[in-house]
């Protein structure tokens, strides 16, 4: 699904944020990315959703080297990726429903289907009464749920989330995480960047830890309940040297 080979991330003439990053995330896997602020979590995600290109190295998405993909191909690839941005990036002039519907409208789905999906998903994230509200009238947590609904409405093959539960209470956070798990069970590859050790502990998935420009994998201990998704230690190298 995602393969990084000796990837270096730097911005302009600035220092390298990450270097020599090599890993592979298999289709259907579920990973957390964590690390201190400025460690490069968001930068890593930006490479995964093609917002940036690596300074060096090679990235393969869905089996294709991204540097060889033209603009049209990149747009088609992005339709398979759902992204929950840290700052939500909701369009302020559009209602909650219109924001959620955006990926479907871009994909050219029929309007009646779009309305149906949007209504169902907004109800699921507990915002059925806020369909016509503009983002500015909603709380941070509500906006975050709309951002998540927008990211998952196309049932993407790859879901990338940057601190997706940072603005919601524990109950909603857990509910959203279960949504991510459900999507994962249906085959969606999930990558979540988070600071929350509590969140990572609650779900038993591999953790990619970023420290000192390097990347380490922590494989989970299998839980007795068996509800956690099995670790995929072979997908990610134990350590990627800086």
């Amino acid at each position, binding site marked *: 699904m995602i393969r990084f080979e000796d990837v270096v991330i730097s911005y302009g003439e600035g220092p390298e944020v990450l270097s020599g990053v090599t890993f592979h995330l298999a289709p259907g896997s579920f990973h957390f990315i964590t690390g201190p602020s400025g460690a490069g979590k968001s930068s890593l995600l930006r490479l995964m959703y093609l917002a940036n290109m690596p300074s060096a190295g090679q990235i393969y998405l869905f089996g294709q080297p991204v540097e060889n993909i033209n603009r049209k191909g990149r747009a*088609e690839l992005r339709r398979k990726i759902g*992204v929950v941005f840290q700052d939500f990036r909701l369009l302020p*002039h559009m*209602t909650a*429903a219109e924001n959620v519907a*955006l990926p479907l409208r*871009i994909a050219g789905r029929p309007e009646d289907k779009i309305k149906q999906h949007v209504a169902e998903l907004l109800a699921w994230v507990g915002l059925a009464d806020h369909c016509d509200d503009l983002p500015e009238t909603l709380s941070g947590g509500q906006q975050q749920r709309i951002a998540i609904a927008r990211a998952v409405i196309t049932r993407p093959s790859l879901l990338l989330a940057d601190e997706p539960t940072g603005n919601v209470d524990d109950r909603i956070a857990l509910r959203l995480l279960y949504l991510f798990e459900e999507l994962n069970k249906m085959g969606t590859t999930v990558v979540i960047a988070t600071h929350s050790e509590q969140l990572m502990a609650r779900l038993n998935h591999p953790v990619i830890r970023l420290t000192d420009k390097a990347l380490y994998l922590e494989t989970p201990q299998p839980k007795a309940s068996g509800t956690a998704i099995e670790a995929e230690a072979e997908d990610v190298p134990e350590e990627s040297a800086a």
Partner: protein
Amino acid sequence: MRWKAAEVPLNRDASERFLPWLMAFLIYLGALALAAAMAVHNAVGHWDSGLAGKLTVQVMPGAADENPAITAERVARVLEELRATQGVVQAHALDEEEIVDLLEPWLGGATESWNLPLPQVVAVELDRDRPPDLTALSARLGEVEPGTAIDDHQRWLGELLDLIRGLQILAIGVIALVALASIGAIVFITRTGMAIHRPVIDLLHLIGAQDSFVAWQFQLHALKQGLRGGVVALALTVLTLLSLGYLLQRADIAFLPAVSLSAWEWCVLALLPLLAASVAMITARITVLATLARMP
């Protein structure tokens, strides 16, 4: 459920609000230039067809106290020579009333104050396919009645045609400048819109929008603004042309042609807003696609 706001909210931009007025102004100028070119073309056609195959023969006035019977005899000799000439279809002498009608626009209506010796004028219609040799005809008429002059209007018409062609080139130049100014304005406004809405455009790309999807937003907006401006411009153009026609009619200036356009020429003017809106749309699309192609 409220639905279908435009993805890129271009209609909220201050710069976008004046686009219809700018378009209206430019299309109005273009429409006036086009109307002028067409009206002038019509006038030339009118004069040309009116004068083709016709000439005027002037029999110079005699002494102030010349007997009218002698004058009539001189004119009759000229008429006789003309009618005997092969290629002359018809020749008739204008009576005094007709001559006064011709001169009145230039000399005023108070004929008693003219106190001028007026020439006798013979209107001649020629066979357009086989016109006579005018040099030979002039020489023969000079022998029949010394001082007789032929005017086939070609010198006057030639100079007028040069003037008209100059005006037409000027009108085409104005239309070209207006088109360039419109395209420039649309390029500038589109680029400004793209800069203002860069975060929205980036987001649309990140969730899978093709460049054509983004371009569609801008081109549709440009089309609507162009049409709005075009309708205003068309209304102003019609009003201006009708007013001008009315004023010229009231002024009753004989040597100025009536400002008249044929039905299809009015249709051309009516199509101008559509054409301008289409150009605006295509310009916006090309601008957006070219700008996006330079983005990472």
